[in-house]
């Protein structure tokens, strides 16, 4: 035996609204877009992907920082591959441009300094801003220490990056002195 239960009108209206919102095809945001924590990088990347593809793209930087911290807790050479794959996925998702992904990857896991990217000659562009360029390189060296040394466990690559910083500082000092001297 079945009984027909008549719902009060306000309750029925609320239920209908709830059903309609469930049918909405727009991506849902996860509750609060909280970046992952813990110690397992694979799980953290999986969570980050899920959240970022569910509408948390505006917090990409926070997720990236969280992943770096988790990676530093478990240094392994393979981490490099995981971070690269994550960035490529981010490009596919439209969260980053390919150029942004390349710069971000190389800032942390490359030996060369993306702070030195320039389309103009050393004399015309780098020398007038030499102290700023060196400050940016110093900051990037700290990021490489995190990426290469603490996350990818690649001390040799970090040593090369560190040495490259010293060499570039010296070469820029001399080259800029040469550029300046001839304009005096």
């Amino acid at each position: 035996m079945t009984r027909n239960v008549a719902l009060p009108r306000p309750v029925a209206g609320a239920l209908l609204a709830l059903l309609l919102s469930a049918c909405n095809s727009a991506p849902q945001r996860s509750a609060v877009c909280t970046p992952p924590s813990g110690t397992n990088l694979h799980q953290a990347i999986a969570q980050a992907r899920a959240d970022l593809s569910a509408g948390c793209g505006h917090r990409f930087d926070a997720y990236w920082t969280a992943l770096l911290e988790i990676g530093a807790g478990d240094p392994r050479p393979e981490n490099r591959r995981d971070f690269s794959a994550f960035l490529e996925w981010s490009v596919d998702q439209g969260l980053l441009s390919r150029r942004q992904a390349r710069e971000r990857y190389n800032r942390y896991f490359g030996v060369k300094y993306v702070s030195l990217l320039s389309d103009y000659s050393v004399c015309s562009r780098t020398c007038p801003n030499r102290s700023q360029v060196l400050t940016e390189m110093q900051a990037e060296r700290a990021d490489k220490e995190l990426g290469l040394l603490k996350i990818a466990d690649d001390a040799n690559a970090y040593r090369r990056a560190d040495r490259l910083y010293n060499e570039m500082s010296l070469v820029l000092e001399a080259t800029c002195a040469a550029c300046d001297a001839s304009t005096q």
Partner: protein
Amino acid sequence: MRPARPLVGLALGGALVLIAPTATRAETAPTIRLFPTTVVEEIKHTGSVAREMESGLQPIIRRLDEQQKLYQESKCDGAASDPGCEQLARQLGETYLEMLQVMSDRLPDMERAVNTTRKALRTRLKRELGQRRTSWEVQEWLVGRDTRTASTTRSLARGRSGMRLSDRFRQYYRLVARPGASADSSLAVIAADIYLDLEETAVLIARTREEINRATLMEELHQSFGAITPEMLAVVDGVKAILFGEETTAAPADAAPVQATEQTYTSPLEM
């Protein structure tokens, strides 16, 4: 009628212009020429001039040291009125003037050699690294295209203190004139180091020349009183530091090169 030969020559020349760069590019990557033969020879010459100056000064400075030691051992400080001390002070002053004279004679040659090398290197640095390349390209050259082999021959010339001036230039010459050096990306570091070193040396030489003029005048005045001044001692110490350095410091150029990393993973995002 105009001879046809220039036209043929022109045509051949044009053909060569079209062909030659392609062939060259195919064989070798563009190189950065920081040390043409002229610059290498200038460095060698500067080393020789420095050596001549050192050998001229060495016996005089040795004599100065001995006289100064004798002066101190004879407890002449504060006893200038003693006839023996007065004589020692006078001898010291004469030797000091002799040192200044030798320096005054040799410094112009040294200054010329340093300035010629400095200007030649400045032109190369400006043209090859400053104007023709971006900072990224310079960096790429330093790293080397092939990260597995590029850094194996790398050595730094850094460490200008603690060496005789002539030894420094001999070391520079050895670094830039060794076989295969022209293709070595570490030459940018060496060129930078030499150039900055020459800049410092040029300033020191100019300062020393001024100091010699001042000190000569002062000492000529002091000769009549037979006093040893702190300025005299400071000038001698300065000359010793510039020309002879400290003997104990090892040259960083002998440091072991850093080996390239054996990379197991190369990201498609790698730049």
